[in-house]
């Protein structure tokens, strides 16, 4: 299925707006006092959940594109990745502002003391270079190869994000949701391993 420039612009606009809905919902809830008894917890979990959803969506682009043959999906990947970064930033800001009141020393102690926060923090920091090099100009300046190598960091970032969630829930023995993410991300990553293995085998047999 090929898309015209115009169709693509429409799709991009729609997706852009859809991706803002979780934030709009959160703001709406806050204004209507619907964030429950513990608003901090609600906002933290909500922004964390959406970060994981967008990370998974970003990782799903390539497999879906290959299976369904929708090459145009690739043109949405940057937006999805940037939205993952956007919600991760809101998640981090919630932690820094509402949880620690910009007390950097206190926040840093928390990052070091609690492994689930350490790994979440590292994942967030690792997202920064990806977000900063997401522009066409940066791709050109880095060169496609190096850019691609850098952006493979995502294969570490997403499992780190899932581990962050898993460890957060582990103390309470409540693992059904983190396991769901682990399976989904595992499948999305294994598909890549499989394709790579398949491609290299084909290349070998063609060489013979």
């Amino acid at each position, binding site marked *: 299925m090929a898309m015209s420039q115009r169709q693509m612009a429409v799709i991009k606009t729609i997706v852009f707006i859809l991706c803002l809905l979780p934030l709009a919902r959160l703001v709406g809830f806050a204004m209507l006092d619907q964030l*429950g008894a513990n608003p901090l917890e609600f906002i933290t979990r909500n922004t964390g959940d959406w970060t994981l959803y967008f990370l998974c969506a970003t990782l799903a682009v390539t497999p879906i594109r290959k299976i369904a043959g929708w090459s145009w999906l690739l043109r949405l990947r940057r937006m999805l990745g940037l939205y993952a970064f956007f919600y991760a930033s809101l998640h981090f800001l919630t932690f820094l502002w509402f949880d620690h009141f910009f007390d950097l020393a206190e926040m840093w*102690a928390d990052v070091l003391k609690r492994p689930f926060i350490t790994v979440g923090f590292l994942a967030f920091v690792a997202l920064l270079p990806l977000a900063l090099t997401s522009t066409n100009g940066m791709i050109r300046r880095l060169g496609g190869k190096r850019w691609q190598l850098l952006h493979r960091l995502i294969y570490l970032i997403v499992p780190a994000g899932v581990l962050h969630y898993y460890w957060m829930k582990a103390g*309470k*023995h409540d693992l059904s949701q983190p396991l769901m993410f682990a399976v989904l991300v595992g499948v999305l990553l294994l598909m890549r391993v499989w394709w790579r293995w398949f491609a290299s085998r084909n290349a070998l047999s063609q060489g013979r």
Partner: protein
Amino acid sequence: QKLAASLNPAYALVEKKTAYKDATTYNNFYEFGTDKADPAVMAGSLKTRPWTVVIEGEVKKPVTLDLDSLLRLAPLEERIYRLRCVEGWSMVIPWIGYSLSHLLKKVEPTGNAKYVEFITLDDKKQMPGLRSPVLDWPYVEGLRMDEAMHPLALLTFGMYGEILPNQNGAPVRMSVPWKYGFKSAKSIVKIRLTKEQPRTAWNQSAPNEYGFYSNVNPQVDHPRWSQATERRIGEDGLFTRKRKTLMFNGYPEVASMYAGMDLKKFF
């Protein structure tokens, strides 16, 4: 349903009470699901009458009491207590009940009674959360004998002038205000006096995180977070700093029970 009780002025905390809605919709009661919104939605299936509580173990007069006999055992008092959850939030709740010591004296503990074990109902038909193995059911909690006899330890039947809502541990629960909330067993069906320290649910599941004593202590952090501060539900909003947690949750009268104990070791 109203539950009559007169306020005990010795425990009339002058702090803003948590809104009834928050106290009844934000609950950790894993028998009805692990999300804090779950119990309010799911606990309708709990049948709180008829209800009996077995009191047995190291006692001269073991007894099984139904709810009405329990309610008549001592005059009901209203007491306003702080409730500090191990997760770092707190509430202020007007409970209704009487000191557990009234009940314990009635069954005459033997010289062997060193601990009191509280056992929560364990019925999959009424408690859907029991199907998931998040804890080794039934939920068990425990206190040392002197803690259980302390006047603050409240056998609780109501809150906010009414009988306990199901999600808050109806029809009878403990309120042990100087300890983290999970130490206060809910929907109690058995109270057993024992020689040995009871194998309590959270302590069994993660001994390095949840100690048997679990006294509120700002100096002893949970392995995964600080306990120095807390957020008062409904009061400390997003734009306020968390408040400092008080030693023994602000009940210094219990300190003498732990004199000479290393509270970092016996956390």
